[in-house]
């Protein structure tokens, strides 16, 4: 049994090790012309990892639990604003602010979950109510003084480990990777736990789950809380990376879309789905931009995004169970 346990985590450990070793390959990647320079690589990877984390959060409630949210911006934004406001207004250290941001995000998740799940909202109805909450947050954040209103909140640039601001981009890469790695392992733990089994049962069939003794309300609430907390960490990391948030960044629809897009493209309800999806989507967007730019110049705007959109449709058409499904099918042959 214990060898079985290790086997379950082996791919994750390998993936984490591979990601951690990626910087070693940077000269090759740059040499091959895939990246203009090492920091281009790091900057892109950091953004991919932040989106991965937001998507991993979404995947807990949406992928494993089947509770499709269109409003994970509500959690991302709470994390991002908490990280910024706690530092600038209350003088909290960045490392202390991060767990607080996570907790606040989780709290918001629990509250929205409580309202939505008690009202027995499912499917599109749940999706739309989360979307509406995110919009309300966006409008409020744009108008309230504590968030800096429309001017947003700027975190002062003070490079130093104590401020969670690093001179070397690789440091932030490893910080973001550490969070992604923890959630990868957490997801596998979840898959192999009672809570995880019940969560999936809720996704598959709520009535059948209830008949088997699953307290579906509690399970869903726990899931959305955990989901929100993870996505809030992504928001907090965004703040630390860009040192500025405003209402459209924090609570904008863009992040809700990214958070759900990555797992669906990668493989919904799987450990690696969000990571694979985020790498593919953002990588694809960057690649389209670079290739189109190199081939046709940048005189006509939007062509790269047209290509990106078409590729997205093609990926869906040929990878019904997400890219991870595609990998598995190919591997099986």
């Amino acid at each position: 049994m214990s060898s079985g346990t290790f086997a379950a985590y082996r791919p994750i450990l390998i993936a984490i090790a591979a990601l951690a070793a990626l910087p070693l390959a940077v000269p090759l990647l740059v040499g091959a012309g895939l990246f203009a320079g090492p920091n281009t690589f790091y900057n892109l990877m950091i953004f991919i990892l932040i989106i991965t984390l937001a998507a991993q959060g979404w995947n807990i409630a949406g992928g494993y639990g089947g509770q499709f949210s269109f409003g994970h911006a509500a959690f991302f934004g709470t994390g991002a604003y908490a990280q910024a406001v706690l530092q600038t207004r209350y003088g909290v250290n960045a490392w202390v602010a991060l767990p607080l941001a996570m907790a606040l995000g989780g709290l918001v998740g629990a509250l929205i979950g409580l309202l939505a799940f008690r009202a027995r909202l499912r499917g599109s109805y749940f999706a739309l109510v989360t979307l509406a909450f995110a919009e309300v947050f966006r409008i409020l954040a744009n108008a309230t003084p504590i968030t800096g209103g429309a001017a947003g909140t700027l975190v002062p640039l003070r490079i130093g480990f104590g401020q969670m601001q690093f001179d070397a981009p690789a440091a932030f890469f490893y910080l973001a990777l550490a969070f992604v790695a923890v959630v990868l392992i957490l997801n596998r733990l979840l898959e192999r736990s009672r809570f995880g089994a019940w969560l999936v049962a809720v996704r598959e069939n709520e009535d059948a789950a209830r008949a088997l003794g699953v307290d579906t309300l509690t399970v869903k609430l726990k899931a959305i809380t955990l989901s929100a907390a993870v996505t809030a960490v992504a928001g907090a990391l965004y703040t630390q990376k860009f040192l500025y948030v405003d209402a459209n960044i924090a609570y904008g629809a863009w992040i809700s879309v990214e958070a759900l897009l990555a797992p669906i493209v990668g493989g919904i309800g799987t450990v690696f789905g969000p990571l694979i999806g985020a790498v593919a989507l953002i990588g694809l967007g960057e690649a389209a931009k670079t290739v189109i730019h190199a081939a046709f110049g940048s005189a006509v705007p939007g062509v790269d995004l047209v290509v990106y959109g078409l590729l997205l449709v093609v990926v869906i058409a040929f990878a019904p169970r997400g890219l991870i499904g595609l990998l598995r099918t190919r591997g099986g042959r």
Partner: protein
Amino acid sequence: MLEVQGLTKRFGGLVAVSDVSLTVPEGSITGLIGPNGAGKTTLFTLISGFQTPSAGRVLFAGADITGRTPESLAVLGIARTFQIVQPFAGLSVLENIAVGAYLRCPHRAEAMAHAEAVADRVGLTDLGRPASSLTVAGRKRLELARALATGPRLLLLDEVLAGLNPSEIRDIVPVIRSIRESGVTILMIEHVMQAVMSLCEHVHVLANGRLIGAGTPAEVVGNPAVVEAYLGHGAAGRLQKGASHG
């Protein structure tokens, strides 16, 4: 074990279950039969907590459980199967059963071991395949296995034999009997009379939401009111005539 007292359920003006009282003795296999639309499944949903009755009470092991949620009833030891099987289609057979097993075994290793044991008991093999790939008979067994994995004291079976061919029925009847022998009380809705005759000690007959007869299977089959409920007014008389001629 289970006692239903004056249970009534109205949907708007329609009375689906009307003043039904019955008892299921501990350790028995009790049958619930009746024509389609008689309210059998509604009665099950009331007992298992999926709907709250308009009137009446449900007692389990002497305690009033009326209006309690299905999940809390499962914890108390009441498990049910669904007439229309509801497998977790995205999961493997073993994972399906494990969901039930987790109720009493919080840890994965125990739950998996328990699930495998239950699968073995109901005769399910090849546990790694997706539940969606099972045949009808396989799905019925899975439904049964999942419920059984929750470690129930009372099992509510809603037409587990429907849709099976005679040889499949022959295979599954001993399984149900062995479940009872392990100490689980069973209340089953069933249309396959041959199985009811061989399994049940006691049978209740429901028609138009009302209890119209009860007794041993043999007594019930001989009850003209029951025959009429199934075959229409006057059928009992015609049948008897036919019997005397034949």
